Each structure stands twice: as structure tokens, then as C-alpha cells.
């Protein structure tokens, strides 16, 4: 998994992480500057949970399947899933010296940590391609 994650760590993308919804680090590849990868995972999960609770289209309190709106299936939406999150699908945190992209992929979170030189669109595209590669294997493991 780490080897697969490392494929996105180019051109300013410093690290890629897989984490559970409660902030536990599952896999990590790359450099996270002065921040411990486990701390980064915890912060990312906290950010996700905070914004997910404020979901404006039927979510809140977790990635439930109830939805006011249409179908959603996270990053690289293609294959619909009956258990896909109805609320937050992905988020980008733009900071002064870097960015953090978090996406929901088959019941876990994918997080990319990049410096300020990376365009947000490229960060999102890399995450989408990585998520496409991870979705089926993760679904087999988690059963979701």
C-alpha cells in the first residue's frame, strides 16, 4: 500500500496517507515536515468530522447513507454505491504554505499533503486516480 501511495508523492505532493474515520493512521508514504504522520492523520480526521457534521445535504454525524439529494460516491465518482456517503465527499484545506486534500474512499479517508506549489486541481486529480486504484481492494477488505 505504501508503494502505491508513494506514486503520487511527486511535484510538490509531500505525503499520502490512508486513515480511518476516527483518525487512526492505516498507511503512510512520504514526508510530513515537522508534523508526525499520526498527528496529521488525527487532525485530518477531525477536520473531516467537523465539516461532515455541518453537511448541508442530509449528512451530519457520520457518513450515513440517508440523503436528501442525489447519488454520491466520493472521489472519482463513477461506480455508484448504496453505502456511499450522502454528505461530504471530499475537501481541500488551503493554507498559507501548503494544502491538504481529504477524500472519502470506501469507508476510509485518503489524505494528500502538499506544499504551496501544487495546483489544487492537480492535487485533486492525483487523489482521484489514487482513489480509483484503492477503491476495490479497500472494499474487499472492509466489506463496504
Amino acid at each position: 500500500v505504501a508503494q502505491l501511495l508513494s506514486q503520487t508523492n511527486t511535484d510538490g505532493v509531500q505525503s499520502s496517507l490512508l486513515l480511518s474515520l476516527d483518525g487512526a493512521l492505516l498507511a503512510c508514504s512520504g514526508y510530513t515536515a515537522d508534523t508526525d504522520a499520526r498527528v496529521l492523520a488525527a487532525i485530518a480526521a477531525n477536520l473531516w468530522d467537523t465539516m461532515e457534521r455541518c453537511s448541508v445535504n442530509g449528512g451530519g454525524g457520520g457518513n450515513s447513507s440517508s440523503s436528501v439529494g442525489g447519488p454520491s460516491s466520493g472521489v472519482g465518482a463513477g461506480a455508484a454505491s448504496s453505502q456511499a456517503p450522502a454528505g461530504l465527499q471530499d475537501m481541500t484545506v488551503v493554507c498559507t504554505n501548503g494544502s491538504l486534500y481529504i477524500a472519502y474512499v470506501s469507508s476510509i479517508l485518503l489524505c494528500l499533503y502538499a506544499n504551496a506549489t501544487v495546483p489544487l486541481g492537480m492535487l485533486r486529480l492525483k487523489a482521484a486516480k489514487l482513489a480509483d486504484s484503492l477503491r476495490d481492494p479497500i472494499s474487499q477488505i472492509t466489506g463496504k
Partner: protein
Amino acid sequence: MDSLRRFLESYLSQVDGLSAILLSDRDGVGLMSAAQPECQWAVEAVVKRGLVPGFCQAAEQAGKLGVGPASAFVTNYGQMTIVLLSCQPLVVTLIGQPDCNIGAMTGLLKDRAFSEQLRRLQQVLPQESGDAAGGSGPVRV
């Protein structure tokens, strides 16, 4: 106030996919909003769900990432994309279609006229001591 609303409404047609603009303080209290008629519900939902206070709380957490204070969040909720911009003491919430031009939305603060309007509002609002939501950082327009 009407002129400010009309000013904000002018951007709804300028930015591709932008459906609504909400100006509020960090507690989520709305100051001014402009929305297309069919998207007024989204503005009300944003206020009701407390998205802006949630953003401020999350931005404070994001400041611990080690890459500086958070200046913006781009969130994809499936039905809509919401961009939240930190402009102490204001928060600009931009609600757009799923395929909206996110780059144009995040770059709205660089628009001279828009930033000038924000600067005027920032001057009349009480400043808060910098602790949360990018307290030491962005964005003083």
C-alpha cells in the same frame, strides 16, 4: 444594503457555476447574502447547519498542520460545492454547482472590486483578538 446585495448578485453571473454568496461573521451570523432564486434554500441550510462556525473551528485545527494558517476550505457535498474563505473578521461562503469553477471562486478575493467591498465591511466590524480561524493569518483584504 441593496447596493451591496446587487453587487454580490453581479458575481453570480460572472463566476461559472456560482449559485450563492453569503457574507457572515465567524459565528455564522449572516450579514449579507445573494443567491439565485432556486438556491436560496442552500444559503438557509448553510446558516442552519452552522457551516461557518464549523469552518472556523476546523480552520483553527488546520493551523496545526505545520503549513501555516488556513485561508480557505473547498468542500464537495455532492449536490453542491462550497468554498469558505477566511477574511478576518468576515467569512465569505460561496455556494456553487458541483461543476463550478473553483479556481474562480477561490480567486474572488483577488478581484479588486470584491476585495474593496470586503475591506469596507472589515473596517466597520469589530476586530477580534487572533486566536481562532487563522488568527495570525489571512486574509486582511
